[in-house]
């Protein structure tokens, strides 16, 4: 009887250690884990003062192609799920303008374009969101884009000057894309 507590104690300890158990765990759940962060950043900003527009003869006062590899980076192109490109055009010049924003592939082919016609100032800021992915345009446009072309046409004259301070046309853009990390 003297050593009953000893044996009881030993029994408890051994039982605790040796009979340790675990509720049913399902590590296959990892297969269902979706890590899909949404990243957003600006893409392109173009600022053109009215005096530049007036200096250029003809109506197409600006057209330039920019190398843009962010979308075609392997990691992004392989994992992008869907997203939105947001454009914003602000015109404080005295001229109505026509602005085209194009996504180009490696060969310079136009994959997608977005056209904006804005009235002369005073006019509201034009904002447009274009979806890509299952609920929008093809993601292949984004995946294959390696350059952006911006073209701007002056639909007015080359002499008028806006009464607003520092008359300028601004093109702003950003992208918000969901990326499938897992």
């Amino acid at each position: 009887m003297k050593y009953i507590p000893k044996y009881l104690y030993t029994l408890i300890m051994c039982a605790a250690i040796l009979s340790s158990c675990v509720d049913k765990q399902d590590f296959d759940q990892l297969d269902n884990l979706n890590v899909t962060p949404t990243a957003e950043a600006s893409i392109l900003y173009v600022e053109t003062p009215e005096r530049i527009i007036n200096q250029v003869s003809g109506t197409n006062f600006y057209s330039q192609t920019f190398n843009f590899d962010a979308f075609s980076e392997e990691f992004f192109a392989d994992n992008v799920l869907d997203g939105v490109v947001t454009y914003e055009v602000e015109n404080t010049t005295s001229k109505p303008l026509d602005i085209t924003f194009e996504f180009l592939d490696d060969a310079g082919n136009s994959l997608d374009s977005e056209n904006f016609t804005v009235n002369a100032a005073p006019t509201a800021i034009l904002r447009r969101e274009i979806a890509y992915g299952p609920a929008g345009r093809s993601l292949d446009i984004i995946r294959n884009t390696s350059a952006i072309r911006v073209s701007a046409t002056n639909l007015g004259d080359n002499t008028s000057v806006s009464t607003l301070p520092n008359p300028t046309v601004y093109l702003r853009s950003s992208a918000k894309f969901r990326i499938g990390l897992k």
Partner: protein
Amino acid sequence: MIRSLVLFITLIAGYMTIHAQNKEVLYDFIEIPQALMVNPGMNTIYNWYAGVPLISGIYVQGATSGLTVNDIFAADGLDINQKVRDRALNSLSKRDEVNGIFQVDILNGGFRGQKDPANFFSFGMYVEGYALNYWPKDLAILAYEGNADRLGQRFDLNDLNTSGQFINVLHFGINRQIKNNLTLGARIKLYSGIVDFNSTNNSGYFETTVGQNNLLRNTLVSDMRLRSSGLDALLDANDNGGGIGSLLTKRGLFGGDPGLGFDVGVTYNLNKQTVITGSLLDIGLLYHTSDVTNYTLEGSASIEGVEIILPDALSDPNADFWEDLVNEIEELIPFEENSKNYVTFRPIKFYSSIRYNFGKQGEPTAACDCDNQTDSGDRSLYYLNSVGGQLYAINRPRGPQFAVTAFYQRRFAKVLALKATYTVDKFTASNIGLGMSLQAGPVNLYIMGDNLLAYGNIADGNYASFQLGLNIISWERN
């Protein structure tokens, strides 16, 4: 049971981190020689002891705070994405951590001085590995949800705080009974670093705000570094399909990173029945000089995409604005690699205890002559019971951590000593541990476990440790 054991081992090995490392059951368990390792000033009651090589001291421990394996992987029918969101992303803080450690004695022995029996010497060698990772809260949110629709929210780069170390330790200690009621001890440790990595003391942030020109502005301010030694060689050996064993042996036997450390400890008998103890362990550092690879990301930059401002942008018709932007960012926040030597400090650990002995049993439980103990020293062995409290602290990257323990120890004749503990720390407030020292002739076997209540469903436990060892002990004085 096999599944439980596999999971247990997986938990320990997978998390392989150590810093918690509170050996509250072993501490001041004077029947076990390995208790000297947590208090070199412990009262020693043996003439000599020899640990059985490789199995004299095996210790594994794993700990998580705020989250358990069961929280995420329980087969409860809930969506794992929702569980991760609710129980990790939205619940854990940057102070939550996962850590684990293993420690294996290669050799361990001790002997009493021939000329002066008040001295007891101990020596040995052990390997130790740990890994520690604090929950990188902001970075986890950034990785899981991204920066979209989070204007003005700063993602703190300081949340990345991780470290790990695998070392071999050669040690020699001396323990001396200074006075009848006072025993002091000290140990010198020679470290040989095998593998080390750490990324601590990072600072900076990532933030998205409304742009000054464009729609959005992304800002990165970074002062981050990852330092490692021995890691590249290990990975290379692994890739080449062999040589890992010889590499570890070479680096472990002082072919790695050198280091030096000390332990000190004290035991003081307030009276015949009351004993206080204290120890400071691993006051030391390692100097990492071999196979060092460091990565840094330092600088700051704010970008709003490709910016074309006319007429300046027309000056170079061949300009590649995208490449210019990428190059500018790389100049402002260079990601660099270097091989500068560095120093790491060992996590200093502090133990203290007060113990009250009662239930006198008339003679020492151990069959020793024990002159010193007879005069004074630690008379614990004359008592059937001990009860007391312990305080533990460890220096951690995000500040010290503490644990408070209450214990009860019971001795049964000469063969068995048992100790039960109840510990409260950051990992759990229901940590019940049990330890047993069994003496069969000269053979001493000890086994101890921690947080036993969690063993009912170990996957739902925040903390677990396990320790066992086998020694040959001579209680007879020469």
